[in-house]
């Protein structure tokens, strides 16, 4: 897909304008999954801004954001990095055959105490 179309897709899914970012880095400072991501939240925003969407779509980091909203809460410019990460993940999993989790994988991931909430949340985040 052309970069400009991808950028438009991300903008319409997320409703976020990455140009509002003033690069203070608070989002990355607040992110509990910082070490799990090859592109940290502030880099993620910057890469969306410069149209590097395909690199982000190929990164595993898009599955490690847990939507804790620390970045959203602490962003002084209301950029909402979590929405951008969600949008890029959706741009991937909305494609045919790109689900990140399948029902067949679920049984072996469970233990007797795991709440339904965990499965439901993961399903909503990882597949369409």
């Amino acid at each position, binding site marked *: 897909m052309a970069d400009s179309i991808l950028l438009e897709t991300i903008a319409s899914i997320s409703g976020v304008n990455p140009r509002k970012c003033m690069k203070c880095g608070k989002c990355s400072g607040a992110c509990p*999954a910082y070490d*799990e991501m090859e592109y940290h939240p502030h880099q993620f925003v910057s890469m969306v801004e410069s149209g590097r969407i395909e690199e982000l779509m190929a990164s595993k980091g898009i599955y490690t954001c847990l939507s*804790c909203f620390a970045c959203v809460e602490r962003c002084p410019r209301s950029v909402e990095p979590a929405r951008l990460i969600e949008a890029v993940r959706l741009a991937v999993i909305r494609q045919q055959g790109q689900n990140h989790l399948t029902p067949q994988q679920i049984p072996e991931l469970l233990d007797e105490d795991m709440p339904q*909430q*965990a499965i439901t949340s993961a399903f*909503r985040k990882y597949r369409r």
Partner: protein
Amino acid sequence: MTYSYFPGCTLKTKGADLDIYGRRAAQALGFPLEELSDWQCCGGVYPLAKDEIATRLSSVRALAASRETGSKLVTLCSACYHVLKRVNGDMRNDDGIRQKVNNYLGLSMPYFGETEVLHYLEVLRDAVGWDELRRKVVMPLTGKKIGAYYGCLLLRPSRELGFDDPENPTIMEDFIRAVGAEPVIYAMRNECCGGYATIENQKYAVAQAQKVIDNARSSGAELLITACPLCMYNLSRNTDGSVPVQYFTELLAEALGLKEENNG
């Protein structure tokens, strides 16, 4: 006053203690919870995508059903609270989402976000009041050092949830004081527990949950309380278990002398 009640998927099974003790205490405190007759799972996570309608429908059905009863809608689960309140905000404030959802649902009266969504703790604070709760306590938890674990979903984003100060919340500490115990403030009380990472990256979930427990223990907490079944799971299953975790409703029922009743 009677409230509509949305239990959510987990409170019927794995998180049953959150539900059972919560209902029992509510009855005793004079705000019975009337479970919505026909509810569906909220989805567990709020749909962040602006262009998603289907993932908002179950919440709107519950919100609209609550409007029919004329009551405010109460939840006990942090995730249900988070999802229902934010979807309700969309129905109030986002013209595009509201129009598409209403077109799809075809309710006899379109839904505009009229229902007020409350967390149980807000009812305790704003309708019952801490002083009144303190008066009803028959078995105060005197001397017990308890840490409130807020996690993420009750607090953030504060501009949409308006639950409490997101960086320095007080509602659960006030609750702990009201039941006679001593609140322990620790830095990680509003940080993520690891959430659903436990499904595919358990190593990360374990590291995150253990950080919370270590911080709480070194700050002197003997017990943590939570309102979220997934926080409960992560803090108890994905840690060394050095600080036990309870649902806040269990503590409430204990303080009110209701814990040992043999019914739901």
